[in-house]
Structures are given as structure tokens and as C-alpha cells.
């Protein structure tokens, strides 16, 4: 996204750009066997079981909301079925 450069009057004296690392997960639904490791051991506790079932009849994990996930990929490391993994996303945030 292109942003117009801020005029000099709007730029504060001390401008620091803090990059916040945020992430998301990706779930291959039909591989999940519903063991719940990713949900139990997620550090920010942002996962829960879905209301739907996959083709094998298991409930698969879902994000509760989009903001909490840090993309640490611990769910990907725990998953015995290679069904879930986390990814970090680059984001710049001005303070």
C-alpha cells in the first residue's frame, strides 16, 4: 500500500518504527486427527476446536481471533499429523 509521505509538521521529533512480529496458522483440515496438542500447548492460547468436522469426522483447530497468534510455530512442531503450522508475518507499526 502506498502512503503519502507525512509533511514535516506531522512528523514528531523522535520517530521510532517498532516492528511487531505477528503471525497466523495454516491447517490442512483433512490430515487432522483431533489430538488437541496444538490447542493445549499454544503459548498465547489462541486456538480452539472448530464446530465443523473434517472428512474423517474429527474437529480440527481454528484461530479464536486473528490478532493473538504470534506465528511461533510451536503448534507445527507438536502436530503429529503435519496438519498445522504457524508462520510469522512482517508488520511495521509506527509509535
Amino acid at each position, binding site marked *: 500500500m502506498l502512503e503519502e509521505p507525512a509533511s514535516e509538521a506531522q512528523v514528531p521529533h523522535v520517530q521510532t518504527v517498532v516492528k511487531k*512480529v505477528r503471525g497466523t496458522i495454516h491447517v490442512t483440515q483433512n*490430515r487432522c486427527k*483431533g*489430538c*488437541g496438542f496444538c490447542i493445549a500447548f499454544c503459548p498465547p492460547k489462541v486456538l480452539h476446536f472448530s464446530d465443523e468436522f473434517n472428512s474423517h469426522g474429527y474437529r480440527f483447530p481454528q484461530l479464536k481471533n486473528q490478532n493473538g497468534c504470534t506465528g511461533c510455530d510451536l503448534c507445527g*512442531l*507438536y502436530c*503429529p499429523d*503435519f496438519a498445522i503450522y504457524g508462520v*510469522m508475518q512482517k508488520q511495521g507499526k509506527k509509535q
Partner: protein
Amino acid sequence: MTEEQMIAAAPEGCGECLPPNPVEGFLRSERMPHIWCPGCGIGTTVNCFARALLQAKLDLNKVAVVSGIGCTGRVAGYVNLDSFHTTHGRAIPFATGMKLANPELTVVVYSGDGDLISIGGNHFIHAARRNVDVKIICINNFTYGMTGGQLAPTTPVTAISSTTPYGCYEQPFNLPNLAESAGAVYVARWTTYHVRQLTHSIGEALRKKGFSFIEIVSQCPTLYERRNKIGDGLDMMEYFKESSVVKHGAPTREVGIGFQGPIVVGKFVDIERPTFLDLMDKQMTRTLDAHYTGSVVEQNVRG
């Protein structure tokens, strides 16, 4: 890793165009989903192994995985590497042969406690004695999973199995102690709960020269836990989380596992010792001098 490095390493991605699973290239995707039960720990260990292998930046054409028989023996069929699914208990002899015929290979033996320690027990102690340069990853789930939950040499005292319905009364093997006393140069134990430490430990073992042994305490929800009324895979993971004590360098004599007792985890042994191939070259050169034509690979290079 600092935050800047993490940002630099983070893949570009939006909601719709995510990068593929980091371990996808390591697996034979057409065989997924695998046969392991819901809540089984073997898949978690394969995940850790794949990530350790990717982080180690090894040439995957020079990595071979050898498995025996059993649930863990299926690993050889699911990894997209040169792999052997060998006869019961004979994974280590196959691996020894591969390593001696082509010393450039990194040979990993990936098998279960019943395969490696029970029927393959003799091969295990003699490969450790000779210090053959193979990496042993042993998944210990306290039972024979694939054949119906019989008593294994690692089943803790008082645990119930299908062949000991009134409780086990045999003293089980203490695997780190067995490996150390037989001569292993690297001995570690982790559980399936300790995924980060396990990944790091497998990476260390891959870089180590000599007989490296990693025991991974895993859960078997279908046979061991159901019979012993422990619960499902997640309950066993909670037990690993609560009862594990990290003690690096602990004397291996004291790290035996009791039924639902504390589990001492960590890196117990990390020493240096000349390997089988080094000693062979040295002795043959000393005896035959100029007549010694070198190991098989050197002969192949010379043609």
C-alpha cells in the same frame, strides 16, 4: 535468535498465499494421513527430526534413514529420503553396513524400543561398543504397540500389558544407562513434550561423530494408556510436562523410569572416542603399511 533475525527469517505471506508447511518437502505427502493413532507421539518426533535436519542444512541426498519393524518402523516409509524398512531388530546391522560401505552418508536409525532394544538388543550393544558412526533415535512407548500391547523390556514395574494382565514384575531396561555402559558417545533423553529441546538435541547428534543415542519417551494412547487407565495422548503429555525433570549430565544409573514416576530428561553423555572406521584404518595401516589400500570409498574413488 533476536527479533530482527526472526523478522528477516519470516516468510512473506498473506492470508491466502501462505508458504507451504516447512516439513512438506521432507515427507512423502501422497502417503498422508499416516497410520499412527490419534494422539500418538511418533508423528511429533518425526516433525522434530525433520526440522532438525532442515536446520542442520545437510545435503538430504546423503542422509539415509533405517527403520526396523513396528509402529516407529513406519517412519522409513513416510520420509522422502533414502530409507530402508528392514527386518525385525536388524536396523542397526543394515545401518552399520551402509556406513562402512559409504562413510559419506549420515545414517540415522529410527526405530522403537521393542525393535532396537528387545530383538535388536545384541546389535545395539555391539554397535555402541564399536562406536559405529550412526545416530540412533529410539522411541520408547513402554510397550509393543503394533502387535497388541505386549510386555516390552521397557515396560515399567506394575504397569499392565496384554501379556501381564496382573501387572508387570520384571525390572525394565534403563536405556541411557545401557547405551552409556555399552560405549555410546552421545546419550540424551527427551519426551514428546520437549519438542524444542528434542530438535536441538537431534541437531547435536547429527553433528556428532560416533554412536549417538537419543531416547524419546512417547505415548501410546491405544494400548499402553488405555490398558493402564491413564487417559488419552493429551493426558500423557500433561504427565510428561508435570513429571519431567531436566538434569543435564545426570548419572545415567539414576535415570530409570517407574510407573507414572518422575522422568529425568536431558543430555547425559557427550564424550569423544575414535570411531570404528578410524580405528580400522589406523590398525590396518600399522600392520599392512603400504599394502593397505584404504577403505571402500577410497578404493572407489581411485577406481
